[in-house]
């Protein structure tokens, strides 16, 4: 028998949440039975809520990175409403809610207060939904970036105002049906533009760290949170979190849908430091956008008419452009 060589193959590698074949030190935060469970059981998020999951993923990773010395400001939205119907709270972190528009500013204030009190050990996260971030809270957010306040802002992007009944936000994707962008007659659902890309706008503030992540890639998300917590100054993390209710997908398919968003190229996952892209998550098994769109009733109208079909082609073009722009498939790989 020849002498054993080091094995570099671990069955599921880091694709799964845990892996019994990997050393404990390199396993995910979520695989740890002692994880913080920052957002605990009993919350009132819908079945299969991606936002509830994304928030626990992100805050558990942050809690580990800063040894539990964390305070969180939360904008109004599902995440706040489903977690804290007074007097119940699901939070196992120091957590504060103020308004819909001002989470970034509250974060700024918390960071300033900690600085004044000399509590350099305590770190600050501000978080909210896409509506609270890319629309109504945007001025506060841009100010926080511009002043380089020591806050990590996390946006949980479910691509509409879910808590008030699925109204369009500027993060709602092309062609999606929402309560305010119905698909009637010639209307395509949401307009066929490419929305507002806040991660790229954040980069334009030249802040230390900007990243996108998804509930479909836990290890990537945890790594980014950990990295963000090791840096000071303004940081931004944009997490893709499917909403079964608003998107009209199966409650068991939340992660699958998020995975297809990334694998089709519609949701590019990357990171940037001081305005320069420094990393990208490569597509592993590229799929046409149809596979993503067809799981969601908010896009079902697109598959019923020839105009709709043409719009699907436009959405495919958006995905292709993302892939080219962010370099999401290796050079020379088949399209």
């Amino acid at each position, binding site marked *: *028998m*020849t*002498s*054993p*060589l*080091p*094995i570099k*193959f*671990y*069955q*599921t*590698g880091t*694709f*799964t*949440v*845990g*892996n*019994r*074949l990997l050393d404990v030190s390199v396993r*995910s935060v*979520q*695989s740890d*039975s002692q994880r913080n*469970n920052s957002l*605990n*059981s*009993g*919350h*009132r*998020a819908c*079945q*299969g*809520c*991606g936002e*509830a*999951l994304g928030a*626990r993923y992100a805050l558990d990773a942050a809690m580990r990175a800063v040894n*539990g*010395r964390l*305070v969180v400001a939360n904008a109004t939205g599902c995440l706040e409403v489903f*977690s804290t119907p007074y*007097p*119940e*709270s*699901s*939070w*196992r972190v*120091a957590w504060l809610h103020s308004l819909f528009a001002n989470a970034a500013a509250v974060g700024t204030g918390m960071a300033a207060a900690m600085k004044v009190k000399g509590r350099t050990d305590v770190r600050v996260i501000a978080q909210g939904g896409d509506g609270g971030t890319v629309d109504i809270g945007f001025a506060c957010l841009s100010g926080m970036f511009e002043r380089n306040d020591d806050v990590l802002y996390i946006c949980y992007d479910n691509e509409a105002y879910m808590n008030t009944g699925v109204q369009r936000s500027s993060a709602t994707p092309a062609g999606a049906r929402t309560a305010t962008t119905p698909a009637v007659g010639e209307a395509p659902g949401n307009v066929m533009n490419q929305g507002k890309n806040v991660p790229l706008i954040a980069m334009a503030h030249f802040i230390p760290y900007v990243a996108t992540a998804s509930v479909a890639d*836990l290890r990537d998300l945890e790594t980014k949170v950990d990295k963000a917590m090791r840096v000071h100054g303004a940081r931004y993390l944009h997490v893709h979190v499917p909403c*079964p209710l608003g998107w009209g997908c*199966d*409650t*068991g*398919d*939340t*992660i*699958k849908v998020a*995975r297809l968003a990334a694998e089709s190229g519609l949701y590019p996952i990357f990171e940037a430091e001081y305005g320069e892209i420094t990393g990208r998550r490569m597509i592993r*098994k590229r799929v046409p956008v149809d596979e993503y769109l067809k799981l969601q009733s908010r896009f079902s109208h697109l598959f019923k008419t020839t105009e709709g079909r043409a719009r699907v082609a436009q959405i495919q073009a958006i995905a292709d452009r993302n892939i080219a722009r962010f370099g999401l498939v290796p050079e020379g790989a088949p399209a």
Partner: protein
Amino acid sequence: MNKPFAITLDIGTSLVNKTGTWRTERPVYVDRLPPCNNACPAGENIQQWLFHAEEGNYEAAWREIMKNNPLPAVMGRVCYHPCEDCCNRAKLDSAVGIHAVERFLGDLAIAQGWNVKAEKPSTGKRVLVVGAGPSGLACAYHLALLGHSVTVHEAGPAPGGMMRFGIPKYRLPREVLDAEVKRIADLGVTFCYNRKVEDLDALMKAERYDAVFLAVGAHLAKRAYIPAGDASKIMDALQLLRGVEAGEQPMLGRRVLVYGGGNTAMDVARSAKRLGAAEAIVVYRRTREKMPAHDFEVQEAMDEGVMFKWLTTITAEKDGEFTVEKMRLDEKGKPQPTGEFETMKADSCVLALGQDVDMSFLKQVKGLTVTDGVVEVGPDMMTGCKGVFAGGDMVPAERTVTVAVGHGKKAARYIDGYLRGATYQAPPKHEVASFDLLNTWYYSDAPATVQPALDAARRTESFDEVVGGLDQSNALFEARRCLSCGNCFECDNCFGVCPDNAVIKLGPGKRFKFNYDYCKGCGMCSTECPCGAIRMEPENI
């Protein structure tokens, strides 16, 4: 009050809100039947032993095999691995090399001297096993584990049956076979060689056996009548293979015809090359597709330079010239003569036309019925005669070593029940973990480890083993290619992906539990379970 940093409200207060009441479907952990296990004629729990091997826990893996099969090192070499034909991984890249890992474990066990002990206290019951082939050995082994006293009567001079006198050394080195048989003998099984049973009834009475397992194998070669000028030029396959085993150098000459299309024909043709024949030509009456030999054996024979003449029968021999007739397949795929003849020059011809069982010693056994040359048995492997069980080649089934081992195990369980005055109840079969029940996204991509085969030129010169084994590093790699179909392998996905923290992690080896107080029944755990071990079931509402 003991509250975490900066927390003022009572923490965890949302725990009063039991969201489990929302549920219309509940997830349940299941163990589905992996397709490999389902296909294994010996009933091995392949997924389970690979699970241990994945962790490098080779001894536990080997012990898991030994629960069902006492011959892992043999099996890893000679089994036609129907498990791999059904392996779900084949739909991703290629099947897990199950036989290669099994062989590695079997060889490691021999090298390390691992042994097994009887599981049950001695019952004082005596069982006779007739035949020390794979079926008899397996039955003796399982009966010994169950506490019975077993004696094996074997007509030949050594154990193994067709594993010794049919399968050539280049497929199964004899030291491997001997080591695995010795382990069975060490369990207390008595072996009597050169002891052909002539009168079963008399023997059972004389030596006071409580039950008997018949596993005599098929050793009588089927013959075809070929008028020959020189009868010594025509011999049968078993005669040849037995001779080689005994160290003889049969006079085959330069050019050898092998008549038949089964695995034995391949064994003979490949052995003929090793015995110095320059040309070995397999003559078969149908086509390659219709050949009963396994495809990889045909391929290996071709690689070694064995030639094939399809759609041909041999009709006569005169002065080293064989007259052959061309055949054609009719609509039913049956070969029909065409009346077109030609001649082939050859120095000898080996008949590999199949084998029959010698049933002469069963004539006096009351109640036992023989139909089409095989003994009829019930689902419990018992013949028409009470207490007389049978298995292997002598009962109606596919004739392979693995099927025989499976019969031996199955019979042992029923014999044990019979001896204890009860009926063995086989556990219910679980639903098969088919490919569509898996979420294969989660498995890393990995090519198959190819066994280092000796190159074809070297192969034909000796009876050295043809296919090489795995070593520690690539055996582990190969084991880890297993998808663990239908059975939890503790990847933590359910524990991680639940938005409601409703999965409880019980610790290594203990798997998980659902907390139905909070589980809303979204089904994410089930969708994201890589191996299909979570089923959603409707709630009674």
